[in-house]
């Protein structure tokens, strides 16, 4: 049974969901790790990315590339709307506004009024045809050995992790550029950056937009891998999963989100698979149903967040010197 659990966990850790969350965490790393912006609404950026694809393709019959583009543009607009009132204020105002905005978006897309476009509580489906038509992998066999991915899943994994690698490379290059030095100096001391003549507000806004767009790509990937979008996928806890991934991997380290996503989902996968298999084998008390498994998983995420922040705030790859963040 132990081997089964490890394989289940590996399948989760390297699956499309982990890749989508890695993208969310890369976006958050730009916001929180490098600029010091406390974005608690990454679920909202993910939502506009996912619904951008779903609405364009499923509701209006447009092509896939347009859907991804619409999602990215919506993320830019969302970042501007959020940034204008809050980026001049303290970091915690941004936190509250972003979590509120993400909830507003979720309630709007699930409302009856929006149902003709977003499908309301039912969500949308059947928008991945174009994406899977591009799949070059031949049918009828499984991929990645013991991970036993179907051709479609293998295709999403390939695209997803390539996207993650590409974005990581982009962040790596950006952080070493003059632009990266400015946003890190804003994180360290906003007034110092301002006194050097840098337009702090504008740099913060650029960071918010960039991280948001990367988050929306994570949303698009998530929607394509599940072949369905539903509003209640984008609960606030999604953002905190991404935060746990970022902090676990190492805030303000370029590779942190990848390491964090793989290890986080390995832990979650083994926990869920273990509980499920023990439950199937009647080794757990009877009340341990699906809801209890979910509750245990989320409690674990909470404990993980607390323990990391108390005992190892720099995570696995992080540098403690990069973490003198504070509300300023």
């Amino acid at each position, binding site marked *: 049974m132990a081997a089964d659990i490890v394989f289940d966990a590996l399948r989760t850790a390297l699956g499309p969901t982990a890749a989508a969350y890695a993208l969310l965490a890369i976006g958050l790393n730009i916001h929180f790790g490098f600029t010091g912006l406390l974005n608690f609404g990454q679920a909202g950026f993910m939502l506009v990315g996912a619904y951008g694809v779903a609405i364009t393709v499923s509701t209006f019959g447009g092509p896939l590339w347009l859907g991804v583009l619409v999602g990215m543009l919506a993320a830019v607009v969302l970042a501007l709307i959020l940034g204008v009132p809050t980026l001049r204020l303290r970091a915690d105002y941004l*936190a509250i506004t972003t979590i509120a905005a993400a909830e507003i978006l979720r309630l709007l897309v699930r409302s009856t009024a929006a149902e003709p476009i977003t499908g309301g509580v039912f969500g949308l489906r059947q928008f991945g045809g174009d994406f899977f038509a591009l799949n070059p992998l031949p049918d009828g066999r499984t991929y990645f050995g013991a991970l036993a991915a179907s051709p479609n899943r293998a295709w999403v994994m390939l695209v997803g992790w390539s996207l993650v690698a590409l974005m990581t490379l982009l962040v790596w290059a950006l952080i070493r550029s003059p632009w990266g030095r400015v946003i890190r100096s804003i994180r360290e001391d906003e007034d110092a950056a301002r006194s050097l003549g840098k337009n702090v507000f504008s740099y913060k806004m650029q960071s918010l937009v960039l991280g948001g767009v990367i988050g929306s790509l994570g949303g698009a990937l998530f929607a394509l891998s599940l072949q369905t979008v539903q509003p209640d996928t984008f609960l606030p806890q999604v953002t905190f999963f991404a935060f746990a991934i970022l902090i676990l991997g190492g805030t303000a380290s370029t590779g942190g989100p990848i390491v964090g996503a793989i290890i986080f989902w390995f832990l979650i996968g083994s926990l869920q698979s273990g509980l499920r298999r023990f439950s199937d084998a009647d080794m757990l008390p009877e009340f341990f149903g699906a809801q209890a498994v979910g509750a245990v998983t989320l409690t674990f995420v909470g404990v993980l967040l607390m323990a990391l922040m108390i005992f190892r705030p720099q995570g696995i790859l992080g540098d403690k010197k990069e973490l003198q963040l*504070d509300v300023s």
Partner: protein
Amino acid sequence: MTRVSRLGLLVLLVFAALGSLGPAALAQTSESIGGRLVAEGDGVAGVDISVATEDGEPIGVATTDDDGEWSVDLPEEGTYLVTLDPATLPEGVELRNPERQELEIRVSEGSSATALFALGEREEGGNILLQRLAQSTYNGVKFGLIIAMTAIGLSLIFGTTGLINFAHGDLVTLGAFLAYTFNVIVGLHLIPAALIAIVLTAAFSGGIDAGLWRPLRRRGTGLIAMLVISIGLAFVIRHVILFFFGGSRRPYNDYTLQLAMQVGPIRVQPVELWVMGLSVLILVGVALMLTRTRLGKGMRAVADNRDLAESSGIDVQRVILSVWIMGGALTAVGGIFLGMIESVDYLMGFRLLLLMFAGVILGGLGTAYGAMLGSLIVGLVSEVSTVFFSSQLKLVWALGVLIIILLVRPQGLLGQKERIG
């Protein structure tokens, strides 16, 4: 094979057959949800009705037959959301009240529940508008008072420590569920159960200050790190409650199912009047405590300027501990009141947290009176919005207020300008 073992085999087979019959026989008496759609006396056919769990997980979709009848089998007892798809209604037939497109239905064990969608002409009219305005204003004050009670603690904790406590909403849930435990599971009357719950929540809240936050403050942990820790704590509290109590909404044993009285244009339940009266008393009490007593003055002094307060001889750590204890007690009261006028569920506090944030920022982060004023406004805005817009969006309007106030007056109605940095 001997005779005896053959007999044994037969017995085993009979048992196996009975065993396999068991679940099938049970399935026939299991839970379901259904109903009949009728417009002007005739059944309405071909309408899609979907059933989902409270968390939005779909169970199934049924289409009404020629008689207008539909039914969906359910996996277990619990509360379900039943949604009618208006797009599939035939021409000329509408929901009488468009807001009642999604119904929340409680299904008890082994029973089949009925979901009723009223079809026909929409109800409109000037008199009804006034009546709905009055009713929603009343509801808004009711919720605003509860938000205010819970938000004072949030605001004072921020004022004294700089921490935005994301676990504050889950203290509300904790208080409500502790009262539920003593009321429904232990069997006490709600009043002693509530008192025990308030004391326990206050002790828990003080305990996390002494056991978690104070050591972290002493270590010089940054505020953002503490904020993330409070999110982790919120996850733990919320999902431990989910683990033990499940996700369904539960009522208390006492003061439920009261008949509503008609007071002028407003429908009022006696329990609501008690809740509102007690809330006002408690809020006035807190305000007097903050202005008249030594401890209250200390709280305001620390919230105003911590260093100055410390250098003038106030024991800052003791004041902070008292703020956590008082905040914990107030959240428990708020949670129990909310449970009395609605029901308790593991997400009630988190939903309230966003409204508390809106109220606290609207009134001015760090101020106690601002939190009261802002929360009342937020409660009113969200409830009155249901007169003009869909009730599914009432949280949207409340949070919209939050964003607008940040644009226009970021320090809030009663806040001081330098606080926002």
